């Protein structure tokens, strides 16, 4: 009886140890019993596995750095209520807090839009940015969804990262395919207080799946760079949750645009 290395490996790795694989297990064991060569191969797989147990043993033994212990014990950054958000913003304006406290306060402001009622985000954004509007603003509301419109919609559909100008009001960051096959793009609206988000193409629209105040790069108003590493945590988390595979490269973007961002 011939048994492939893959099956022998799975056996050596204990994949057949569960009761539901009892028949596979006994088939392999019978084969091994009758074939010393098979037994030798299983032994080889097991021996490598045993040797690997000591891999990076020193990492397991050395003391864990204090900063990681602190990170594990830190209070989670709870999603901010609207009131918190206002407070965080005024605190930021007042320049309060050390850089560490500033980071936490900043993180507390960001929160995926879907975690809050659409009405809340509309309120917050209308109040502060006049972003969401039924008419000409870059973001509109349709039921429980936020949709890109006007300049944002146009940029999502037309703008290629390879040739976008740094002065464009809308900067496109990453483009990628989501796990459900939709094309998604991150964007930043460059305005006095930049907002970043993630939009996915659905039907004829760009549905906005995450939206948060952008984190300005560097200090002061020295120019906002829409590198994805500067995306707010909430947007980054949404990207991470949705992205399937690698981001599109320049050519991938061109092709996706030519196909109308259709799946």
């Amino acid at each position, binding site marked *: 009886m011939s048994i492939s290395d*893959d099956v022998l490996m799975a056996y050596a*790795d204990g994949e057949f140890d569960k009761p539901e694989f009892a028949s596979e297990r006994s088939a392999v064991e019978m084969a091994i019993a009758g074939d010393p060569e098979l037994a030798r191969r299983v032994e080889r797989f097991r021996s*490598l596995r045993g040797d690997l147990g000591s*891999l*990076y043993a020193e990492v397991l033994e050395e003391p864990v*750095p204090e900063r990681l212990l602190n990170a594990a014990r830190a209070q989670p950054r709870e999603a901010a209520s609207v009131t918190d958000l206002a407070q965080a913003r005024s605190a930021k304006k007042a320049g309060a807090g050390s850089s560490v406290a500033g980071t936490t306060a900043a993180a507390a402001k960001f929160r995926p839009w879907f975690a809050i009622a659409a009405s809340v985000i509309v309120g917050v954004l209308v109040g502060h940015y006049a972003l969401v509007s039924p008419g000409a603003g870059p973001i509109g509301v349709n039921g429980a969804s936020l949709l890109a419109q006007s300049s944002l919609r146009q940029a999502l559909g037309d703008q290629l990262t390879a040739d976008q100008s740094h002065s464009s009001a809308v900067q496109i960051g990453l483009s990628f395919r989501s796990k459900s096959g939709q094309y998604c793009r991150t964007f930043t609206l460059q305005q006095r207080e930049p907002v970043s988000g993630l939009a996915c193409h659905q039907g004829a629209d760009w549905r906005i799946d995450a939206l948060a105040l952008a984190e300005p790069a560097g200090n002061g108003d020295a120019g906002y760079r829409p590198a994805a590493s500067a995306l707010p945590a909430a947007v980054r988390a949404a990207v991470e949750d949705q992205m399937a595979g690698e981001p599109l490269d320049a050519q991938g973007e061109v092709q996706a645009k030519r196909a109308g961002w259709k799946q």
Partner: protein
Amino acid sequence: MNHSLSQVQDQLVALLPRLRRFARSLTRHQADADDLVQTALERALMRLEQWQAGSRLDSWMFGIIHNAWIDEIRARRRRDRVMTAQETGEHVADAASEAPIQRLSLQAAFEQLDEEQRAAVLLVLVEGLSYKEAAGVLNVPMGTLSSRIARGRENLEALLGGREGGLR
């Protein structure tokens, strides 16, 4: 959630050595590994509600670390496309064809494996996860996972030298 925050945090602290080892195997660099673990802890605590009590906390954390590492690789690639290949070992180390004559230490051999094989080998052969659990952590199908293990094993044996067979 059935677990109090402090209980989960106790478990996280207990996991730290293993989380650091997994991060080390991905980054092959101690300071980068600890940065990665720190990022993963922050992300985990921010969305603890996504962890289902009763499911394995270690697998969930491995998945977050792995995702954070993929983010980091992408960020590096954007920052400097030239440096990326050297820094992250994104070249697929075709270990079998580049097998050096001399015997490598186990760790040196392991670090020559490509990214995907390192993660799969670490999770299954070192951490003892099942193929299914490891496939879940890495978000790949079972078949992909088992072929990464098989190729990782072959390459390791070739790099370690002296062991016969195993090459494809």
